């Protein structure tokens, strides 16, 4: 079955003076998909969203919603809705009036509005508060109102701009689940902007990672986690952050070895012949996730390297071990083990299949 494409962004560029906020960004969002734009603040994700919404005019590129080029159309003719970071619920209106706003300005009949609003209030658990002034309600209600108001007009695509930033950590989790449930239940296409990788990982069908105005990688959460295309994405996704070490690739007795300080690691299996040749004798960046490292008391295989424990941090049922591998600092995440102390000498197993190797100059992934 062909999946329908709801939104296409083609070569979008937006400049503010000399600053290129969005630099040649292209992606597409499919029908009923939860798509996240993920990146640090100032990476251009919100500007991208505002261009899609029609609140900013792009300098270059096209925005196509359901096959219709909307690049120059005003916001109200695009078939989109936006939930803002501050929710932007109208405080002078009741919850009912808020939910009905879009339908009223679109001149729906009274009965129709009533029917739709009641249905939405029902699914958002707002039925009891319909006559309350929206400004008096708490954040979690305001979020639901904002969401309800946006959904009421049945947009082709719903845009959300970091809607959970202002919310307490405690409520956040339940709101995330709620949002995901609604999205599935009502079958909405969502474009979600966030700087929180955990949030993006938890909720999204696909994620687009952005940095400095550029789109770096698009893919399903697991795909991005397991297959980062460059150092930035590898660093941005996953917690604690991935270890990035300087290493050198050298040939020894016909085998490719990765040299980290005085440690030699056999990585022959990872490289194709041509790529291996190209990087022999050059410095590269080695990436390995803390959760992929195995801590051992004794050396058991040729992949085990000696380290010295620097510091131990307890994280509930797990612990983060900071170690020195030669001069480099390495972190490993492991279940709590009480036989490791600060200052101990231990062995780290670096599984070659868990290692990412990046070009040192471009920071792009090699293997």
């Amino acid at each position, binding site marked *: 079955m062909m999946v329908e494409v709801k939104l296409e962004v083609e070569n979008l560029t937006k400049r503010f003076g000399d600053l290129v906020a969005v630099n040649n960004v292209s992606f597409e969002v499919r029908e009923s998909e939860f798509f996240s734009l993920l990146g640090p603040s100032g990476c251009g994700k919100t500007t991208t969203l505002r261009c899609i919404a029609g*609140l900013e005019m792009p300098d270059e590129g096209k925005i196509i919603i359901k096959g219709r080029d909307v690049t120059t159309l005003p916001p*109200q003719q695009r078939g989109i809705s936006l939930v803002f970071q501050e929710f932007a619920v*109208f405080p002078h209106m009741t919850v009912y009036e808020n939910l009905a706003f*879009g339908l009223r300005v679109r001149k729906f009949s009274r009965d129709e509005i009533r029917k739709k609003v009641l249905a939405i209030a029902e699914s958002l658990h707002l039925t009891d508060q319909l006559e309350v002034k929206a400004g008096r309600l708490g954040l979690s209600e305001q979020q639901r109102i904002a969401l309800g108001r946006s959904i009421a007009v049945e947009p082709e695509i719903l845009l959300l701009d970091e809607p959970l930033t202002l919310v307490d950590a405690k409520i956040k989790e339940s709101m995330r689940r709620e949002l995901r449930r609604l999205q599935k239940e009502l079958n909405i296409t969502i474009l979600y902007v966030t700087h929180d990788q955990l949030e993006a990982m938890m909720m999204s069908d696909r994620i687009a990672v952005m940095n400095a105005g550029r789109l770096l990688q698009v893919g399903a959460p697991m795909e991005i986690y397991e297959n980062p295309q460059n150092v930035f994405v590898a660093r941005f996704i996953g917690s604690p952050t991935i270890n990035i070490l300087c290493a050198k690739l050298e040939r020894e007795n016909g085998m490719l070895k990765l040299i980290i300080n005085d440690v030699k690691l056999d990585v022959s299996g990872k490289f194709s012949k041509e790529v291996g040749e190209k990087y022999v004798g050059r410095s590269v960046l080695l990436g390995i996730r803390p959760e992929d490292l195995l801590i051992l008391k004794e050396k058991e295989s040729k992949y085990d390297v000696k380290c010295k424990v620097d510091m131990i941090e307890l994280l509930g049922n797990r612990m983060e071990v900071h170690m020195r591998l030669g001069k480099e600092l390495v972190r490993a995440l492991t279940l709590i083990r009480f036989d490791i102390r600060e200052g101990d000498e231990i062995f780290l197993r670096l599984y070659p299949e868990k290692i990412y190797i990046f070009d040192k100059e471009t920071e792009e992934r090699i293997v």
Partner: protein
Amino acid sequence: MSIVTKALKYICVGIFLLWILVPVAWMVCLAFKSYPEWRVAYFFPKDPTLSNFIILFEPKRIIGMMGATAIVDPVTLPLINSLIVVGISTVIAVFIGFFTAYGASRYNSPGPFSLFFTLLTRMLPPATFVTPIMVYYSNLKLLDTHLGLILLYAAVTVTYGIWILKGFIDNIPREWEEAALLEGATHSQVIFRVTLPLIKSGLVVSGLFIFLLNWAELLFALVLTNVNAVTLPVHISKYVGAVGQLYGPQAALGIISSLVPLIVGYMIQKHLVTAFTFGMVR
């Protein structure tokens, strides 16, 4: 709070109130005094009378009495004139003020500097430009007309509308308007359904402020009107002057002309509270 500081506070407030209210009390008492008591320096009338009020509406009665030498017209026409002129000019000033303030707040046009210059009409003493305006008006046949006064009043007070309302509009997050736009509202729907209701208190307060200024305006009205468009302040001034020293009726008219702003202020009390806490709409 200790009793001493509390007492001090009340004493300060008391002195302040005395300072403001004594002249008002004097006016009220004078309004009910009969002719012989007008120039006597005590508060309460010995022989309270309503004749001062009656004289306002039937001035013919005073010919030859109370030291009056000429007829002053009945107060009805100036009262109606004032209501028309001040009412309409206030509405215009608030209306134009709102849209100017909206543009300045949302689009930063025409820049802060030009906005500052809207205050120019308030920086010059009105006496400096009332004469040129009189000349223009006489050429434009606007002397002694409602329209002439309305235009002038709206022009010199619109700047208050702009500055007061800009503060209120600045307080409204842009997102609310953008959200409404995205819900499918047009720009004018956004203004009328979202922005205007949210700054209701601001509209009311700037309206009241402008109303009060124009209601008490004397100089322009004195110079630019003669018979048809005379306003209350001009009329009040007529009781003391060429016709004699009619202090009693003047005080009575003072009461009447204070009643209008008092009633208006009472009606919009609810908004004044929100507005003077500086318009936080949330």
